[in-house]
């Protein structure tokens, strides 16, 4: 299959949806490619509790003349202006004039003894499973890690009937109070915070606290929590544990976009360092839904050539960036989290490579060559981010970079003859 678009958007979360809707209003031929079965990305994952804003934009998207490739995963950029993607049973070359990367974010997971036990999941991970139909009513859940996602997840799970035993935020109270100062400047965010706190009423909220171990035989039974050197066990059915959202940079890096401090750099109009490639949403900085929507709109307008309109929105965007930085500063990871893993704790879950086998290596590349760390099907998406924190290595944006295909692919998707250049 071959398709040609004026503007191709990768990722159909808030940023991607906003970008596509802005671009299509400018009468561009727009395509949207996304690897999930339904639109919305992670934050607006379809399911019971989509916010009204999400429902209204998704309805707009349904009505818009946008070609949607849902359940398609981008694998490679065989040549400039073309992305190769595959779905369950076919592959396609998607040719574009302008490309908008709205690839979103994932969670960072840090290894600790027992974290590979079934029912230990990401914070967003458990939330996604519940939205995907996992019954949670009456189940005991510990939510741990860092950032506002913990509260959002705890609130959602509590609403679905979960018994949220504890919420453990690794950041100190002092840092969180400083963040609260910024929240007052962002009333919408403050309201969201209050709402989440109210819904989780009854759960214990600890600061400077983390999951030090997960215990159980075939699956999770108890979690050992640690706070100020004191440890205790909580019985639970699920542990939802994530340490920050980190951007999905594989595709931007593959395309050669400049990365700084772990994020794609863009100008005010969301243009990356690569001509005709724009980036919006979490890959440019973890800023939440409102900022992602704004960046998506800017990217869509700019890609469609509506520069003046895009510039107006860019002024609004600049005002939100302070919050992005404040949030990042407030939830800097406590260095004590580096010593949770024991010698035998698995770090690379695909290849079962333990902490003790990794720490003797000088960098990510050497570790890969000697231990197969990061060489399983996730291609280092999980352990790479962990080793960045544990050892200061650079995995995705580092010297070894990204090689296509950016996801494991069928051989037929790689060998099918690429777009015939004469056709264009």
């Amino acid at each position, binding site marked *: 299959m071959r398709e040609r678009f004026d503007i191709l958007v990768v990722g159909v979360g808030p940023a991607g949806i906003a970008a596509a809707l802005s671009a299509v209003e400018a009468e561009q031929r727009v395509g949207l490619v996304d690897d999930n079965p339904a639109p919305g990305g992670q934050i607006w994952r379809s399911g019971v509790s989509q916010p009204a804003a999400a429902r209204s934009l998704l309805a707009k998207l349904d009505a818009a003349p946008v070609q949607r490739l849902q359940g398609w995963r981008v694998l490679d950029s065989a040549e400039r202006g073309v992305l190769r993607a595959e779905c369950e049973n076919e592959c396609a070359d998607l040719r574009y004039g302008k490309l908008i990367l709205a690839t979103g974010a*994932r969670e960072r997971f840090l290894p600790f003894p027992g974290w590979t036990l079934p029912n230990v999941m990401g914070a967003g991970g458990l939330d996604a*499973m519940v939205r995907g139909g996992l019954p949670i009513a009456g189940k005991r859940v510990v939510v741990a890690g860092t950032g506002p996602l913990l509260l959002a997840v705890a609130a959602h799970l509590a609403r679905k009937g979960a018994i949220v035993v504890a919420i453990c935020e690794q950041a100190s109270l002092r840092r969180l109070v400083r963040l609260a100062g910024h929240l007052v400047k962002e009333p919408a965010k403050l309201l969201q915070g209050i709402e989440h706190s109210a819904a989780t009423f009854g759960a214990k909220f600890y600061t400077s606290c983390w999951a030090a171990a997960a215990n159980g035989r075939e699956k999770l039974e108890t979690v050992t929590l640690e706070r100020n050197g004191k440890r205790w066990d909580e019985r639970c059915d699920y542990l939802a544990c994530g340490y920050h959202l980190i951007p999905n940079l594989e595709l931007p890096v593959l395309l050669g976009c400049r990365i700084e401090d772990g994020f794609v750099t863009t100008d005010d109009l969301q243009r990356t360092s690569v001509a005709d490639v724009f980036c919006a949403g979490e890959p440019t900085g973890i800023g939440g839904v409102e900022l992602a929507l704004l960046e998506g709109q800017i990217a869509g307008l700019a890609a469609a050539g509506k520069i003046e309109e895009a510039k107006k929105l860019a002024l609004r965007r600049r005002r939100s960036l302070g919050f992005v930085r404040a949030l990042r500063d407030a939830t800097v990871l406590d260095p004590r989290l580096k010593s949770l893993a024991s010698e035998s704790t698995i770090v690379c879950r695909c290849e079962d490579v333990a902490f003790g086998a990794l720490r003797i290596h000088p960098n990510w590349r050497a570790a890969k060559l000697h231990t197969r760390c990061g060489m399983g099907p996730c291609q280092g998406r999980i352990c790479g981010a962990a080793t960045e924190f544990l050892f200061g290595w650079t995995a995705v944006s580092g010297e070894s970079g990204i090689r296509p295909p950016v996801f494991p692919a069928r051989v037929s998707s790689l060998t099918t003859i690429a777009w015939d250049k004469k056709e264009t």
Partner: protein
Amino acid sequence: MRKAAHSIALTVNDVPVTVAPGTTVAAAILIAGAPTRKSVTGEPRGPLCGMGICFECRATIDGIAHRRSCQILCAQDMKVRTG
């Protein structure tokens, strides 16, 4: 009429499971109480990221191995095999 909400019947390791439309295969596997896969050293594993990144939820679905069960919705008479 709550019946319509639980209308998809599938099997996980030959055990019948009934789920609501929109349920992912990964959720169905957890409902069936099975791990999704065995790691290369034989540990039982379950879903971690829930969004198609970590590959821990890989299972054999209708005879096709290594499918990310968290990104696939349950369908009537689907046959899922784990471990």
